[in-house]
């Protein structure tokens, strides 16, 4: 997985790094650093928690696309997605 960091939206709450210091690095003023690399497998849960802690919605977790499957019914949603 990876995290899209919108540095334009970051306002320096620093909650991402408080919740997941191993994933999110801050600059000298406490704003999140852009992230180029993929999140290591063992840190996925921390990355999600850190992104969820951002009140500015500056962090978007992009989950890896599941491998293609020949059985179409397996990927079709069973019911309409609920809005969070």
């Amino acid at each position, binding site marked *: 997985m990876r995290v899209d960091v919108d540095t334009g939206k970051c306002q320096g*709450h*620093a909650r991402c790094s408080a919740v997941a210091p191993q994933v999110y690095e*801050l600059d000298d*003023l*406490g704003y999140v650093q852009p992230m180029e690399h993929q999140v290591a497998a063992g840190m996925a849960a921390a990355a999600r*928690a850190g992104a969820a802690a951002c009140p500015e919605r500056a962090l978007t977790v992009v989950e890896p696309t599941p491998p293609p499957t020949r059985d179409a019914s397996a990927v079709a949603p069973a019911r309409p997605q609920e809005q969070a």
Partner: protein
Amino acid sequence: MTRTHERDDLTLAALPIATDREAAWRLLLDSGPVLQMEGSYYAVSDAAIDEVLHDPATFSSKLAFDSLGSPVPLVPIAFDPPEHMRYRRMLAPFFSPGVIGRMYDGLRTQLGDLIDPLVGAGACDVVRDLCVPFPSQVFLTMLGLPLEDTERLIAWKTAVLAATTPGASSAQDIEAATELFVYLTEQVAARRGQAGEDLLTTLVNDPSEDRLSDEELLGMGFLLVLAGLDTVTSTLSVAFEELASDGELRRRLANDPSQIPEYVEQLVRLTPVATFTPRITSCHTTLQGKPIPAGSTVVMVFASANREVEDRHWGFGGGVHRCLGSHLARAELKLVLEEWLKRIPEFGFQEGFTPLMKWPVSLLGFDELHVAYPPR
């Protein structure tokens, strides 16, 4: 079905804050996302507040804070982008997590000096003896002012806060506000040409063309007094009320101080002391689809919105005006609780004392909390 936004039956004064805060904030949330009370609009849902905070041109902080009639520009809250960015750029380095982290040791020493004399007494008013003086000392420390001025600063800030509350100010308050103004003016003058790394000395001697004028420096000093002292005092008072009332919580935090930062975060989420944060609309607009005329007061109720989501919150506001002192505030709250619980892990209210949360007020908290503990 149309949603009713006008709540003629609701008034701020009638909210059951003192008796059941949870119900009061949820009552507003359930009447949202935007409701009208007593001539103002209230943004009470997470999405409504997101909309207000992220459109500062429409929902102006400048218009809202100009109406306070301060004699000096309240830097930076009474400004909108782009002017606002200049102030934030200058002030942010003094309030970053790293800089605040380096203040810990000094602040712990100050806390020891405040709390140690209370230990032997077996009882105190923890608001008067700790929650009030400590944030004032931190302000003096940041600005490079002597701690001996704490008593004077407390008297001035009390008067300044009264002077900015419509209808509550007296001639004495105005006089005290003027004294604070004179004090800060003298301190600015005294620091010109001096060496020092504190906020005031650094900004006074800023060599850049962009530097703050004396008037802007005074306005910043005033705003730091308005925004940084009673907010922390009030939040601390809520924490001490919860700890004195809840033995399980008290023992959990005393036995495992590593849980204090998360407790502080939830405290700020559920009891954000800046109860009502205003903006004024610069033009006709809509909020969550509801039309709002130009010149309307739109008040954000963070306490209500923060009950919609658990893992993030607007306790320190958000958008370009996100509380500049949030990292300092978190540090103050954490350090006070750590240093107190280290020395006084067991305490409760003095016999016959019942804490009372005043309402309606602009900052939620307790004016006095008489606590007792085994003297040592």
